Structure formats: C-alpha cells, structure tokens
C-alpha cells in the first residue's frame, strides 16, 4: 500500500515539474517536439533512478557513519556528474541504439536539478506515506525516484503535445516563445491542482 501511495503521490499529486518546480530548464528547452520530449523523459528516468540508488547508498554507508552529511551537496553532484559520464560510455559500447535515442540528452542531465533534487530529497526529508513520518528505505526511495521521473515524463509529453499545437497558432509578438509556454504550463498546473489532497 505504501508503494502505491508513493507512486500516485509522485506522479500526480506532487508532480515534479508542476508542483515542485524541478527540472524546468530542460522541460521548457526540449518540449518543442513530442519525439525529443519522449527521449529526454526516458534519459531522465534512467539517470534519476540510478543516481538515487548510488547516492542513497553513499549517504547511508559512507557519509552518515563518518559524520560527513554536510558534504552531501558536493558529494552528490560529483557522483551524478561522473555517473552520467559513465552511463554515456557504457551505453555507447553496449547498446548503440539506446545511446542514439538518448544521445544528446544525457550530458544535459548533469545540470538537471530534478536529479540532484530527488537525490537530496530522499535522504534529508521525512515522508508520511501511509503512516508516521519516516525516512525512506532504499526500496521506497527507488520507487519514489522512478515514479517521480514517470511524472516528469507525463508532464513533458502532455506539454509537448500542447506546444506542437501552439506552434501553429497566431500568438501576439510579446507572448512568443517562453512567455506563452509559461502561461500554458500555469494552466496545466491548475489542472494538476485538482489532485492535491488525494494523498496526505
């Protein structure tokens, strides 16, 4: 039941883009076309889950025992940066087709604050899914990370669909580009507010 609540909460109620404001730059940057939006979401999904796994373990078995939790920010960003590089190298060798699909999106992910945000969130924040406030276990963290990135993909794909239509419509000059996109996201976020309160 806890896992189910985590999934619903992470995808709809606390959507990472529309409610938590993480990963906005790539969200606005690559959502012009549905195909690139899907590629980016897949890459983010992959990296967020992997990064959360590694940073959770590092935090639990390295930083906490030695009393070094103040190094979280520095340690995590370095881990994420090297992880992204490694994933890129491994994919290039083992799965050229997946590498071609994710391609240019992988290096961009290092500076996607969604990755660092989720990694820091799961080790510092207490969640209250289905009961008392507690720090997430490794399994819960991974489910949370994966569901969060699914929420990212959902928002991205919906928005890319809207944007493809928007490109065809006649927009006033001052609204062109980012402003109209922001107003659209605002309305999308209003719709997602309908989910709020579903999971406490």
């Amino acid at each position, binding site marked *: 039941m806890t896992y189910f609540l985590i999934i619903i909460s992470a995808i709809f109620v606390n959507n990472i883009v529309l409610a938590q404001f993480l990963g906005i730059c790539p969200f606005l940057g690559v959502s012009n076309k549905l195909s690139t939006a899907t590629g980016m979401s897949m890459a983010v999904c992959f990296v967020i889950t992997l990064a959360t796994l590694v940073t959770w373990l590092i935090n639990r078995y390295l930083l906490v025992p030695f009393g070094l939790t*103040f190094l979280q920010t520095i340690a995590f*960003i370095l881990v994420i940066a090297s992880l992204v590089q490694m994933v890129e190298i491994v994919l290039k060798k083992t799965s050229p087709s997946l590498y071609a699909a994710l391609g240019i999106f992988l290096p961009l992910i290092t500076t996607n*604050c969604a990755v660092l945000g989720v990694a820091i969130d799961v080790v510092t*924040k207490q969640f209250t899914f289905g009961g008392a406030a507690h720090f997430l276990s490794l399994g819960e963290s991974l489910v949370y990370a994966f569901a969060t990135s699914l929420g990212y993909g959902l928002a991205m794909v919906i928005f890319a669909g809207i944007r493809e239509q928007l490109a065809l419509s006649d927009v006033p000059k001052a609204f062109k580009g980012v*402003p109209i996109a922001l107003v659209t996201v605002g309305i999308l976020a*209003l719709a997602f507010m309908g989910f709020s309160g579903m999971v406490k």
Partner: protein
Amino acid sequence: MSNKLKLITDGLVKNNPTFVLILGMCPTLATTTSAVNGLSMGLATLFVLVLSNIVISAIARFIPDKVHIPAYIVVIATFVTLVQFLMQAYTPAMYETLGLFIPLIVVNCIILGRAEAFASKNGVWDSALDGIGVGLGFTCSLTVLGAVREILGSGSIFGWNFLGGDGMLAFVMAPGAFLCLGYLMVLFNKFLKKD
C-alpha cells in the same frame, strides 16, 4: 569607469538572467511565494555567484581544459555549502522555507554559465563586478516576481497586509508562479527589451 559600471548595469536589464537569458527557472518559480523569500533566494545566489566568479577567474589558468567543468562545479558546491551553513546558523527559519533550493544553487545554470562565459576569460575584478551585476539582476527579478505573487496571493507586501484580507491562494501555489512569470515576461518584452 563607465566601462566597469556597464558590467553591473548589463546584468540588470540587457542580460537580465530571468527575463532575457531565461536561466535558473527552478528557484525563480519555486521560491518566490513572497517578496522576502524571493529576495533571500536572490541574495543567496548573488553571494555564491560573486565568490565563485572571483575564485574561478583567479584559478582558471591553472585548470587543465579537460576537467574544467568538474573543477568549477566543486568550487561552486563549496560556496553553496558555505551558504547552507551561514543560513542554518543565522536565518534558520528562512533556511527551512527555501529548503531544497539552497543546495540546488549548485545546479543553477546562471552560475556555471557566468563561470564558463565570463569568469574563465576575464580578470578577478571584472568577474566580481559581473557577478554583482548578474546577481543583482537575478535578485531584482525574484523580488519583483515575489512581490507580485504576494500581492495577488496573500494581499500583502513584504508581510504588510495592506488589503486587510486574504488573496487568491492559487497565486502563492504552483500555477500562480508560472502565470505571473509568464505575464511579467510579456511586460518586460513589451516595455524594456530593445530589439
């Protein structure tokens, strides 16, 4: 001297990080629930930006080209950790409010952007001024956005409830952030941006 002054004023309007360069959107949207919150986030970013610009411009010559991005990130992350400590010690309430977005200053693209585009190619003094200019531009944008959202959302400004009632709650929440920033950008394009 006018040249030095221009470094600062450029960051405010011509290269405004929020409205023109459209960088650092996450903290811009997330922390501007009130004018004070926006101002605090802006100042924290300004602090990191100026110091990292100074250090990076001083050491850029000694860093091998291949590892310059990781090296810059370590410098930036160091100052972010410093800000975390300072805020925890002196403004614990504000640290709680801004929460996750303080450590996330590390991945704010404005800072790495200025390090890469300006500090690595210019002297220490110029880089410091550039950091101040861009940082002030960011701080002003965040304060204005925070003020607009606070007026519409809670009917107050800097905590002073001049309307004597509640506002439209949606403007303090997520949708209001996107809508306000979108419309402010439109006004900026219309009146301040020179083509």
